[in-house]
């Protein structure tokens, strides 16, 4: 025979609780879904028309024109002693990630005018921490030598930005030393797996 329904004399407070739960627990989800549905329908009918067969979804804009430091860039091109970013890469080892940057002077500076350049990285900021250690690169003898900096990062950390001071010493009558403080933003640094 049919079961007798379970206790139907719920207390009043329980009845109110159930009402509130039904309103919040089911009402809000229904609103969210209605909002989503109307959003999808209106973007389909009133949004941008799809352009190609293979391009049916919402469009994605590529980020451009953001001044990020990339491989192949020239840094301090506004000075006598510009530097070329020869390599910028992340090497992924099982226990550490290494961020490697290789710089070299773009051309031989005029010895009369410049005595050399000293580039100081005051820090390197990753997603979770800031490595506060000074790393210095110096070019004095007018070579085109490449100089490399390697930061050892904990696994999972990627470089975000760095504070840099560029000091070039000029010999001519115009000035003594030129100090420039810059903030480098690193965009996407290509990563390679190393074993």
């Amino acid at each position, binding site marked *: 025979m049919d079961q007798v329904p379970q206790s139907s004399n719920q207390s009043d407070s329980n009845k109110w609780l159930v009402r509130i739960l039904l309103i919040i627990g089911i009402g809000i989800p229904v609103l969210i879904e209605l909002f989503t549905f109307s959003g999808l329908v209106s973007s389909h009918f009133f949004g941008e028309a799809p352009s190609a067969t293979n391009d049916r979804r919402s469009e994605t804009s590529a*980020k451009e024109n953001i001044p990020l430091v990339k491989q192949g860039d020239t840094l301090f091109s506004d000075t006598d002693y510009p530097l070329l970013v020869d390599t910028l890469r992340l090497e992924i080892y099982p226990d550490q990630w290494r961020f490697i940057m290789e710089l070299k002077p773009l051309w031989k500076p005029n010895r009369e005018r410049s005595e050399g350049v000293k580039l100081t990285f005051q820090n390197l900021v990753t997603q979770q921490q800031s490595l506060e250690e000074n790393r210095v690169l110096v070019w004095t003898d007018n070579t085109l030598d490449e100089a490399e900096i390697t930061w050892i990062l904990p696994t999972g950390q990627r470089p975000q930005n760095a504070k840099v001071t560029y000091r070039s010493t000029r010999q001519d009558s115009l000035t003594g030393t030129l100090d420039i403080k810059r903030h480098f933003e690193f965009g996407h640094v290509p990563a390679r797996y190393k074993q």
Partner: protein
Amino acid sequence: MTFIDNYPKSAKIAKANFLVAFIALAIGGLFGLIQALHRTGWARNIISSAEYYTMLTGHGVLLALVFTTFFIAGLFVWGVTRSLDREPENMAFSWSWFWIMLIGTLMATVAILGGFVEGSSIRAAVLYTFYPPMQAHPLFYIGAALLIIGSWMAGADWFRSYLAWRKEHPDERIPLQTYMTLFTMLMWYVCTVGVALEVVVLLIPWSLGWVNQIDPLLPRTLFWYFGHAVVYFWLLPAYFVWYSILPKLSGGRLFSDSMARIVFIIFLILSTPVGYHHQYADPGITVGFKFYAMATTLLLLLPSLLTLFTVVASMEHGAKQRGGKGYFAWLGKLPWGEPAFAGCALAGIMFAAGGFSGIINAAMNINILVHNTIWVPGHFHLTVGTAVALTFMAISYWLVPQLTGRKLKNKTLALIQPYLWFLGMTLMSNAMHRGGLAGIPRRTAEPNYSQFDFEAVFGTISEIKWQIAIGGILLTVSLVFFLWVIFNSWFRGERADKPVDDFIPAALSGPEHAPKILDNIKLWVLLAIALVLIAYSVPLAEMVMDGLFSPGAPTIPV
């Protein structure tokens, strides 16, 4: 008198399985929260982005494989024992499968958690799909194999009970709960052949270094031979609850016993030959076989739609017994204030939503738009993450008292819990589906790219992230409520002779109306095997013919 008094030995082993399941649920759930906060950028400093993948592996393995398998084992021990009215034939055997599953689980868990120890060589950040050539520590694969072997033995245990019962009852119909258990396990045997071959023949020798290269496509295909049927292995126990317990909880009786049997037969024969629908975007599998898998997948909508009918009809019957009237007004007469009922009903509603996004996934060429985007986890958090998990949690409020002989404590918290889960999951899953439409990938520690931005179809990406993070927090609060209620009831609940009303009435249309052929186990198993052979023999033969480990890719340890 309740279950623990009638069947003390079964109660003990069911409780042991539930205990492991709830511990896995607690750890896996915590991992889920940290992932939601990390991915959305709300808290990127709890773990590093490299550790994210270790955590993701733990989340997937502990919830999708460990929580489900142990809970299902406990549920089936309960169902087989009470529906056959007999305890397991040999308790030593029953405890041996439990321990094998547990040892396997511990091995795999150690391998995964090793990834959090700096410098550890024991790592397994291969996610729960463990695609080679990314290689985990051998412990991980051996542990996974033991978990599966243990589950096979559990199934054998239930078959043994059935055969012993059959000897004493030669002419009776198989009781429905045992029927559903046996058919779920038959499907499990058919599908786990794939993953067992993958792990034992290919991955264990390779992870031990006996071979030094691996053909990535073959193990991947074997994994997906298993990988979709496994979702039915999670779902069918939820159906078991919806068919055999939910009608009672709503105050009525099951509408049709024979329809329940037909549904389980369809799942047995169609669950495995659909695996390619996880490989629609794979090179190396011909379009024809993908098409066959798609048609089979969409046919699988039928048993779920039948279930929808039967379960809703049973609930309507229940509501009308409670005085409900009209076409829809009866809904108000359902026991929405009972946590076990409310949880199962909300899980069922959410399963309907999951079904809709599943149809998109199944539709081969539409699937390509959302393949491997966050849409996909959005989908399966509705199905396994709610339809299955919320049903399991809700029915625990009704089962744990029977297994412990103690009344449920903190009933208000228990009542709030399923509603909170429903709300949190709506927020999170809705946002994940929308993120998927914008192309945001799944399984990614930081879905922020420097060379481009995502654009939402409507609304904004940051609003989508907010929804995911808030949804994840609400789900965690709901999970804490659940664990607290269960812990309190289990250890501090008031002892009672009848802690819940555990009587399950007969179906309105009982087994006497069901054709005998439905109980012909051999016939349906043979049909299932035939359909699997059609789907898989040719492609697998092609992959094996050029060498088991070729074209071979070099091993990449994680």
